[in-house]
């Protein structure tokens, strides 16, 4: 006697003959509910070969064609639900927002360059770093079109600020330890690179350290060039703000702590505010040790 549970009903088979069976109605929402809830066991290949035939015998459907179209309708519904659920994760929002910031930055750079070209047209020989600032007092500001242009850039800058605020909020709520240690934006970038907080939490620190430096890493693995010291982690003030000879060590210390922070955030949700100061202390040790050696 074998009992099998399929998406369309339960069947008891004895010597390949149906002993008892309960087929469901060909109702898409009800069948979808069944697929959603039940944890089906796998069954024998001989039974698997007969699924269409069994569904017809149980009068769930009246033909093979109907079998396929009913199954398809049910699985389309489940597929849509699963996709919506995947995009409703906080990580999905964080990843969208950080990608949005990158897009805005690119647009601001592009338009700013255009605006500085514009200023040159009006025979201004040099355009300083902050184009928007300079633009206000330049002769080009008289042009209405150029004003429009500058306004668009300003709006983009505002949008960037708003997006950054939104990321900070999401990160504080969903990854507090990572936010404290790496900063909200860098933390979000790490989550986006890893593909989610869970993926980041499961990563070894060494991989976090070089995430974003994959070209350099593979060059190292393949051709034996120097390994990269840091990837996106370079943006952290502790890495960037120190002398190059110490950055590799600091990146390693920081990446180890980030791995711990991500795991805390994903698995325990407890907040440990001392993570950053622990890293800072080790950086200070490193700096003083360096000084002692050089003096």
């Amino acid at each position, binding site marked *: 006697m074998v009992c099998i549970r399929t998406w369309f009903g339960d069947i008891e088979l004895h010597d390949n003959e149906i002993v008892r069976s309960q087929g469901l109605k060909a109702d898409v929402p009800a069948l979808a509910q069944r697929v959603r809830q039940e944890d089906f*066991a796998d069954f024998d290949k001989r039974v698997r*070969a007969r699924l269409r035939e069994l569904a017809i015998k149980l009068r769930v459907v009246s033909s093979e064609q109907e079998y396929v179209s009913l199954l398809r309708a049910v699985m389309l519904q489940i597929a849509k639900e699963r996709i919506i659920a995947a995009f409703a994760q906080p990580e999905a929002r964080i990843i969208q927002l950080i990608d949005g910031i990158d897009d805005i930055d690119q647009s601001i750079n592009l338009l700013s360059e255009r605006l500085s070209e514009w200023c040159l047209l009006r025979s201004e020989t040099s355009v300083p770093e902050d184009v928007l600032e300079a633009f206000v007092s330049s002769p080009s500001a008289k042009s209405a079109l150029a004003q429009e242009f500058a306004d668009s850039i300003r709006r983009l800058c505002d949008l960037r600020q708003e997006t950054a605020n939104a990321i900070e909020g999401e990160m504080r709520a969903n990854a507090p330890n990572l936010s404290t240690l790496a900063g909200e934006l860098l933390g979000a970038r790490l989550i986006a690179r890893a593909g989610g907080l869970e993926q980041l939490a499961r990563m070894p620190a060494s991989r976090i350290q070089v995430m974003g430096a994959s070209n350099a890493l593979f060059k190292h693995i393949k051709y034996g060039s120097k390994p990269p010291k840091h990837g996106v982690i370079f943006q952290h003030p502790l890495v960037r703000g120190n002398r190059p000879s110490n950055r590799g060590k600091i990146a390693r210390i920081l990446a180890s702590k980030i791995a711990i922070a991500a795991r805390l955030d994903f698995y325990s949700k407890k907040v440990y505010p001392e993570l950053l100061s622990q890293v800072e202390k080790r950086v200070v040790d490193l700096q003083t040790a360096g000084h002692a050696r050089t003096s």
Partner: protein
Amino acid sequence: MKVRPHQIPGVFVLDRQLATKGKPLYGEGTFDGYRLWSPQRSKLAALLMKPAHVPLAPEQVVLYLGAASGTTVSHLADIVSLVYAVEFAPRVARDLVHLSERVDNIVPLISDAAHPDYGAIVELVDLIYQDIAQPRQAEIAATNAELFLRPQGYACIIIKARSIDVTAKPKTVFKREVKKLEQLFEIEGVYGLEPFYKAHAAVIARLA
């Protein structure tokens, strides 16, 4: 343009391009009711451009692992009778679902092929096609073949050497993967997909 049948029923050769018959689904080029099938976009198309024996037939039911946005799936659905298309990544699965809504012989499954949760849904299949570019792909193919592939059924497995071991030579990686597959399958052929895909190979295997 001259239309010739390919050795596989349902596949056509227009000049030097492959095509299947059906309505266009993802913005591909069309000619007189034929949908052009670019080997640049589909590894199966690249394989069909080779002098390879690919076990595809009109009445087949196929389990497709790693369906992505469904480009190849849509052409395969023109050739065979039914495709169960498995994809896990929600971003591309969205395109797959959108496409499945318009084709009546694709069943989309948003699941992880490494941990099949579609045991009560997928029937016995004639062919497993796998294009998942993962280090454990041979294992995943075996898991699915043990559950869903009929005796004497075929597997067509695309191996991306770079996803399995970046440091080893592609040839070494292919050999290693074929060895793993030999535990369950009889290998009928291994075909490189150059010049369309670098360091990719297709393994045609048969369940013993």
